[in-house]
């Protein structure tokens, strides 16, 4: 049997649910990894990412009968996922700072409790220091919370999930040139908040052959 498209599965769901969930299950299987991955990139925590991804698919289950397929199913799904992840960011009480501060100089030992949003740049961190990466992720979460919702959504779609401009225009139902300029503005706003909250960390990253992100030292 030929593989059914998302749209065909959605049409089946509308007649089969709630008594028969097989078509819905196929949609879940097809998209669950990408949704989970997108959400994880925003919230940077496994348990939270799973809870949110489950919530996304439950919203889909309850919303499928109203979905009219004006946009593609995946556009609709990823819009729900992005919004759910950003909503969760507002609710999640961020975890405490990583055990090893980004600036581990002795001078910091006696430093008074600092603003948790203001992280200091690392001077001594090794390129594969996972703690620094973890702290960077926390910092990115804070920046996403500070951005306007629309800007955060655009950055997640384009630079976190690598959707094409065309796909984003489809999700948001706006023109391509509008999407491009909004994303450009969102990147500039991101940099401003990042510098403000995370210090002047060297943002020159590269991807090693092992797929790891490496921070280049200046």
């Amino acid at each position, binding site marked *: 049997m030929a593989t059914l498209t998302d749209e065909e599965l959605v049409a089946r769901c509308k007649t089969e649910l709630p008594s028969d969930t097989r078509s819905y299950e196929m949609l879940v299987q097809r998209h669950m990894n990408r949704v989970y991955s997108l959400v994880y*990139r925003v919230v940077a925590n496994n348990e939270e990412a799973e809870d949110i991804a489950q919530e996304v698919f439950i919203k889909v289950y309850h919303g499928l009968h109203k979905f009219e397929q004006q946009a593609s199913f995946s556009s609709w799904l990823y819009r729900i996922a992005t919004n759910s992840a950003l909503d969760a960011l507002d609710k999640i009480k961020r975890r405490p700072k990583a055990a090893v501060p980004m600036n581990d100089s002795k001078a910091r030992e006696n430093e008074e409790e600092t603003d948790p949003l203001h992280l200091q740049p690392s001077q001594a961190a090794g390129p594969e220091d996972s703690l620094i990466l973890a702290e960077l992720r926390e910092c990115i979460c804070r920046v996403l919370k500070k951005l306007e919702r629309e800007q955060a959504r655009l950055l997640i779609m384009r630079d976190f999930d690598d959707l094409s401009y065309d796909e984003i225009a489809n999700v948001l139902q706006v023109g391509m040139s509008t999407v491009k300029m909004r994303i450009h503005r969102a990147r500039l706003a991101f940099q401003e908040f990042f510098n403000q909250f995370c210090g002047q960390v060297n943002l020159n990253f590269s991807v090693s052959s092992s797929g790891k992100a490496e921070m280049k030292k200046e």
Partner: protein
Amino acid sequence: MNCEELAQLLPDLVDGTLPAPMLAEAEAALSECPDCRRELEAARQIRTFLIALQAENANLRVPDGFEARLLAQIHGQRAGLELLDLSSKAFIMWLIELINLIGAFIDPGSELRASGTQLSGA
């Protein structure tokens, strides 16, 4: 190409999606627009940074049992709703019976007169 026109092309310059002839023109115009150069550099830096950072999660997979837990939640919700639906129906039936009983108590004759039109939940 002036700065305003160049600014419109910055997203494509960041993403490397500008056609070759326009790219040459844009690059030439960049030397005349320091603000555009700063914006381009900043936007490029952020995109590279986020893409590289996210590349670490390129092969993320849902935890084991994700789908089973999801379906259990959905079936649990559905069973709860069905139970609620049954309870609602039972409550309405009981209410109708109660109204009929009160009506018969207040006006015993009405039960006989209205036997054809009496409220019935059946």
